[in-house]
C-alpha cells in the first residue's frame, strides 16, 4: 500500500512540476492544483497508513488501543485542502483577469515586468 501511495505522490509531484513548466497559464493552474494534491497525499502517506483501525476509545479506557489510525494528519490535510481550495479559486480569477488584460495565455508574453 505504501509503495503504491508513494508512487502516486511521486507522479503527482512530477506531473505538477511538468505542468508548471508549460507556457500556458491554464496549465500553470493545473500544475499548482496537482502540487497541492501531492502535498496532501504526502502528509497522509508519511504519517503512516493504518488499515481498518479507527482511533476509537473503548468504553472504560482512556486511550485507544494501538495500533490505530492517526487522526491528526487527516485534520492537517482537511485544513490544507480548504486553504488550497481558496488559493486556487483566487488563482483562477487571476488567470482570467490576466488573460483579459494581456490578451494572451502564453507566459512568454508576460515579460514586461521581468528584468
Amino acid at each position, binding site marked *: 500500500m505504501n509503495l503504491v501511495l508513494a508512487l502516486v505522490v511521486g507522479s503527482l509531484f512530477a506531473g505538477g512540476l511538468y505542468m508548471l513548466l508549460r507556457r500556458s497559464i491554464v496549465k500553470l493552474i493545473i500544475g499548482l492544483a496537482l502540487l497541492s494534491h501531492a502535498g496532501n497525499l504526502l502528509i497522509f502517506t508519511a504519517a503512516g497508513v493504518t488499515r481498518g483501525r479507527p482511533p476509537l476509545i473503548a468504553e472504560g479506557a482512556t486511550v485507544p488501543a494501538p495500533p490505530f489510525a492517526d487522526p491528526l494528519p487527516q485534520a492537517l490535510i482537511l485544513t490544507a485542502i480548504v486553504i488550497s481550495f481558496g488559493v486556487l479559486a483566487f488563482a483562477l480569477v487571476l488567470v482570467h483577469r490576466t488573460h483579459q488584460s494581456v490578451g494572451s495565455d502564453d507566459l512568454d508574453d*508576460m515579460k514586461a515586468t521581468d*528584468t
Partner: protein
Amino acid sequence: MKWLLVLPLLIPLAAAAVSLLAWRWPHWQQRLSSVGAVAMLATGIALLENVRRGGIQAVQIGDWPAPFGITLVADLFSAIMVVIAGLVGTAVTFYSHASVDWRRQSFGYYPLLQILLMGVCGAFLTGDVFNLYVWFEVMLIASFVLMALGGERAQMEGAMKYVTLNLVSSAFFLAAVGILYGVVGTLNMADLAQKVPHIRPQVLVTAVAMLFLVAFGIKAAAFPLFFWLPASYHTPPVAVSAIFAGLLTKVGVYALIRVFTLIFVTDTGYTHTWILVLSGLTMVTGVLGAVAQNEFRRILSFHIISQIGYMIMGLGLYTPLALAASVFYIVHHIIVKTNLFLVSGIANSLRGTYQLKQLGGLYRDHPGLAFLFLVPAFSLAGVPPLSGFFAKLALIQAGLEVGQYFIVATALGVSLLTLFSMIKIWTEAFWKPEPATEKVLLADEPETARQTRPPALTLWVPVVVLAALTVILGLAAEPFLSLALQASQQLMNPAGYIEAVLGSQP
C-alpha cells in the same frame, strides 16, 4: 497578561471585520484601520516590555495542553518582530491615505492590509509548524489580492509570478511538514526541539531541514530562489510595495531563523554551512542585479535580496553575536527599506515617474526630500553613525570571531556596491538637472503614473518618523544591540523556550 499574546492577532482581525462592515464608507475604513494599526503597535510594545521583564511567554489556545493544542509563544525575537510589524503597518496605513488611489481604497484595500498584518503577526507568534503554514497562507492570500488589486497589466503580470512561486513554496512547505510529522510524530516546535535529536537515522531530519530551507528560502527571496521578487514588487501602488518590501520577505527570514535555531540544530556543520554559502551568493547576486537597474523601485527590490543575504549570514555563522546582529539587521532593514520605498513614492508623486532617466532636479526643488532619501540610503549602505553601520559591524565582528574571512570580505564588498547604487539613485534622481526631453510612457509603467501632485502631509509624516528612527537606532545603538543580544541568547539556548511551552518537564 496572556491576552497580550492574542491581541496582535485579534486587533487586526477586528479592524478588518469592522472595516468590511463599513464597505460603503471608505473614509471610515481609513480611520478604523489607522486606529487598528496604532493599537497593534501599542500592544506590540506592551508585549515586548512584558517579555523583557518576565521572560518567554506562552499561551495555549483553547487550553489544550501543549503539544496537543495550538501554542502561541512570544520570546524576545518574536516580540521585537511584532513591534516592528506594528510600526511598519502604522506607517504604511497613514501613508496609504494620500498615496493609494480612491478606486483601490474603496475596494477593500484597508481590510486586506489588516489581514496581511494579522498573518504576519501570527507567523511571528505561533509555536506550531503547521500553524505557521496556516499563517503563511493567511498572509499570502492577503498579499495576492493587494498585489493584484487595481488590475493594471503590469500588476497582473507581476502577480502571476508572485502567486505561482509562492504557491510552489507553500507546496514544499506542506510536504516538509508532512514528512516531519511522519518522522518525528509531533509538530509543536518546542516538542520537536526535544524529540528531533533522538531521531535515528539523523539524515532524515537533515533532508527535511533542507526542504524547509527551500520553502522558506523562496519566501525570503534567497539565492537562487528570488526571481519572483524583482519581477513583481515594483508593480503595485508604492504603499503596497513598501509594506511587502518591509515585512513579507522578513517573515521568511524569521521562519528560517526560528526553525534553524530551535529544531534543526543537530547537523549544523552541514545545514548552517549551506545557509552561509547561500547568504554570500544572495548578497552578491542581489547587489549585482541592483547595479544593472534603472528604475527606482527595481533597484530597491534587488537591494532587498542582497540585504536578505546579510540577515541569513548571521544565521549561517550561528554564534550568539551573529544572531544578535541578524536580529538587529532585520529591525534596521525593515525600517530603512520601507522608508526608501515611501521616499520613492513621494518622488513619484512629485515627478510622475519611477524611471531614473526621467527623474532629476529633486535636490534643487525639494532639498528636504533629498535629505530624507540620504538618511535611509546611507543607512542601507552602512555609513556611520546610522543603524546599518552597527548592524554590519556586529555581523562582520561575528564573522571574524569564527574565522569566516571569505564571507566577511563578501559582505564588505557588497556594501560598497550598495553604496554605489544608492549614489546612482542620488545622482540620477536628485542631483542631475531635470531632463527636458519629451516624456514617453513606458510599457510596464502603471496607467496611473504621470499624474503629479504635491505630496500631502500624510506622505511626509511616516517618512520623517522612520528616518528619525534610523538615526536613533544608530546614535543610541547600545540598548538596541543589547536587546538583540538577549534575543539571540534565547535563540541559542532553546531550553527556555521549551520550558515556557511545555512546562518544566524533565
